[in-house]
């Protein structure tokens, strides 16, 4: 499963489908304010695109897409974005994760909540996507260096 597939049909189908799945994932992430969706679903769809490439074109050939050695770092960065938004809200004078007190002067509090939700969902998307890729790579013992 870590090697490249021998069937050209599966390889072409995987290489064609993976960018479309990731595009739908980005759409779901940004459309979470207006319809069903959000950070978790978008992150899982982005991870599904990467895992499809990992299974079809092989683990070594898809390292140029998402490198296995950087996924856990990016997962930590996603969690830090989430918690950092809350701590910046504390520094602005509010409670933890109270986006109305973010230190942005030229926005109304309601729109600051809008962009606070967007930042938090960005953290969730990054963390969930790279976390799921990390679990897959560790189960199959993909060489990471």
């Amino acid at each position, binding site marked *: 499963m870590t090697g490249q597939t021998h069937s050209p049909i599966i390889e072409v189908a995987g290489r064609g489908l993976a960018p479309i799945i990731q595009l739908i994932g980005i759409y779901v992430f940004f459309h*979470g*304010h*207006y*319809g*069903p969706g*959000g*950070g*978790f679903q978008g992150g899982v769809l982005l991870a599904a695109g990467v895992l499809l490439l990992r299974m079809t074109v092989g683990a070594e050939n898809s390292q140029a897409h998402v490198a296995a050695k950087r*996924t*856990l770092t990016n*997962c*930590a960065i*996603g*969690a830090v974005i*989430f*918690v950092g938004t*809350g701590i910046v809200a504390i520094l602005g004078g509010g409670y*933890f*994760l109270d*986006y109305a007190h973010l230190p942005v002067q030229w926005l109304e509090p*309601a*729109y600051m*909540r*809008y962009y*606070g*939700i967007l930042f*938090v*969902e960005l*953290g*969730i998307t990054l*963390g*969930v996507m*790279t*976390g*799921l890729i*990390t*679990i897959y790579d*560790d*189960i199959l*013992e993909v*060489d*990471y*260096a």
Partner: protein
Amino acid sequence: MYTVADLPARGDLNAPAQQITNAAGTPVAGAYYIQNAYKDAKTPNMVCVVLADYRSTDTMGELIVVFAGAIGCFFVLRRKRS
């Protein structure tokens, strides 16, 4: 089965969870979210506001659970390159 048969029907407007104030006279959280979600965050999707704004600590717990699973798999399953 006996307990489930006694619950109010789905989408019943007279159910206790759909009222603005409950029997004790204090406001119900669901009605507050429905009335004030767009005014507070200018976001049309109410579920998104509840998940990422009103109950954001719960979502932080979800993300930390995923991160804990990833870091557990990292330390248990990942082999050193030989």
